[in-house]
């Protein structure tokens, strides 16, 4: 029997990242990579090998609760060796539920995975990114992959199979969904990221930071408080341990103190630069270039120079 490695995410870009990882692990264990989808095939999602579509006649499989139940039934029927789930907020729930249902080990938030000898080994950040832990668990097992750790697999044709998982009865009912804010960012593929932190005093001032990002041909990111506590930006902009991991050529942090949890998400950037009024801010220890300055003075000065260069 050939081993299979399953990959699932509700987000298209994360699903493509997982297809890449599944392919790597499948190659290592001599098995088949399978991209899982719920209800129907999604055009934006690539697959390294096969696509398996899980369906139920009774309910759309559109929540982490039902996705986990559908996947556990499918897993009991076809015994995959490894099930990978992207570590989004929904994905963490899917993976944890699945591991509990299967009584399997679950390595979470891995940014590097390898497989050998019926064992999955994953590396992840612990203690706010201060340390890297290597975790291992016997197969069959579940793992969540830290979003942004691997490249995305693009455009391959896959053989599609469908499986009816039977009746699904949700305990949690969705009443409605509201988008946090229109517009999406693709921080994972951005070459330049300018990130705003609490040093930015008002939501309106983010416009200035975003304009700087545009002038540099980059995207806008932020520290956790701006998205989680203040709600100035959607969570998809939030970089770090609990947000996305990024690896741009240039990461410019403005008004970010540089706590471990933030650094955990930017450590693979090629060049890190920081602007902060506090000369002792920890961000400077984690930077290639540090400017002790008020962002309200430095950003306009940078903009002026960049505009002059353009014309």
């Amino acid at each position, binding site marked *: 029997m050939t081993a299979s490695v399953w990959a699932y995410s509700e987000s298209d870009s994360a699903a493509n990242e997982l297809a890449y990882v599944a392919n790597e692990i499948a190659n290592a264990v001599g098995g088949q990579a399978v991209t899982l989808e719920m209800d129907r095939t999604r055009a934006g999602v690539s697959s390294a090998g096969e696509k398996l579509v899980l369906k139920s006649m009774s309910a759309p499989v559109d929540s982490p609760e039902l996705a986990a139940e559908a996947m556990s039934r499918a897993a009991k029927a076809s015994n995959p060796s490894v099930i990978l789930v992207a570590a989004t907020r929904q994905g963490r*729930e899917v993976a*944890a539920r699945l591991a509990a249902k299967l009584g399997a*080990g679950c390595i979470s938030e891995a940014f590097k995975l390898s497989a050998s000898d019926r064992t999955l080994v994953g590396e992840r950040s612990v203690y706010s990114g*201060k340390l890297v832990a290597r*975790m291992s668990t016997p197969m069959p097992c579940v793992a969540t992959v830290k979003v942004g750790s691997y490249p995305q697999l693009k455009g391959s044709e896959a053989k599609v199979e469908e499986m009816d998982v039977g009746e699904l009865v949700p*305990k949690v009912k969705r*009443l409605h969904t509201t988008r946090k804010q229109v517009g999406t960012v693709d921080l994972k593929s951005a070459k330049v990221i300018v990130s705003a932190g609490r040093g930015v005093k008002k939501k309106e001032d983010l416009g200035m930071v975003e304009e700087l990002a545009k002038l540099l041909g980059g995207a806008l990111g932020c520290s956790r408080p701006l998205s989680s506590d203040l709600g100035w930006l959607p969570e998809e902009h939030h970089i770090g341990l609990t947000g996305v991991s990024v690896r741009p050529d240039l990461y410019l942090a403005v008004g970010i103190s540089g706590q471990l949890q933030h650094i955990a998400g930017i450590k693979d950037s090629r060049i890190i630069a920081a602007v902060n009024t506090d000369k002792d801010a920890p961000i400077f220890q984690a930077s290639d*270039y540090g400017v002790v300055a008020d962002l309200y003075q430095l950003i306009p000065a940078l903009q002026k120079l960049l505009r002059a260069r353009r014309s």
Partner: protein
Amino acid sequence: MKVAVCVKNAIDETELRTDASGRPLLDGAATKMSTFDKNAVEEGIRIKSSHGGEVVVFTVGGVDAKKTIKEALAMGADRAVHVLAELGTLDSLGTSRALAGAIRNEGTFDVILCSEGSSDTYTGQVPPMLGEVLSLPYVGYARKIEIGAGLAKIERSLEDSVETVECGLPFVASVVSEINEPRYPTLIQIMQASKKPIAEVGAHMLGPAGLSGGNVAVVSMTAQAMERKRVMIEGTAEEAAEKLLQALIAEGVLPR
């Protein structure tokens, strides 16, 4: 309304030291209540203040966990159940089974709260696993919880959307930090907390599952390597901006 709140006594990452080879000095490391768990305790107390009832704190951990329990009691929880186990001997599934066993032993709760993830390992697995082990509805990343007659309406905060969901009581939820502002206990509350009951539970009292669930093992831990140039740029805003741009161009991360 009976509210259970799960808290973790976590290693204080800001105090954690490593030895010369980069291995963490975990023995005797300072601990504290895991950051976001304060939001879970606060939410439990708020639910009690509008619906009455009691708030019971549950923790799985070593003797050191008493201080985290006392902090939760000082914030306003009524009593605590301490499952004695050394941190690091259980994986997430083991911890959620232990919590589930301890919660079941205390009868039926209407609401069981956790935080989105702990500040030390941040796996975020225990809350959904607890929902599964207890076979209850589970809602993750709650930023607002409204409890009505037998039903809860919860706003769950996802990366780019907010879902409003409904489920029956009892339920398990994890909360995010924006749900509330945790209170600071007063000196009087801290003193009163020492009189509140803390029950200690050993593995043998948790039923057949006991403290099982050690599928995931830590192979090694090493310090995060971080080598950066740490060049500081000085001058007026105009001068510093110019120097920064030149440096970034020289690095090849900005076009000439």
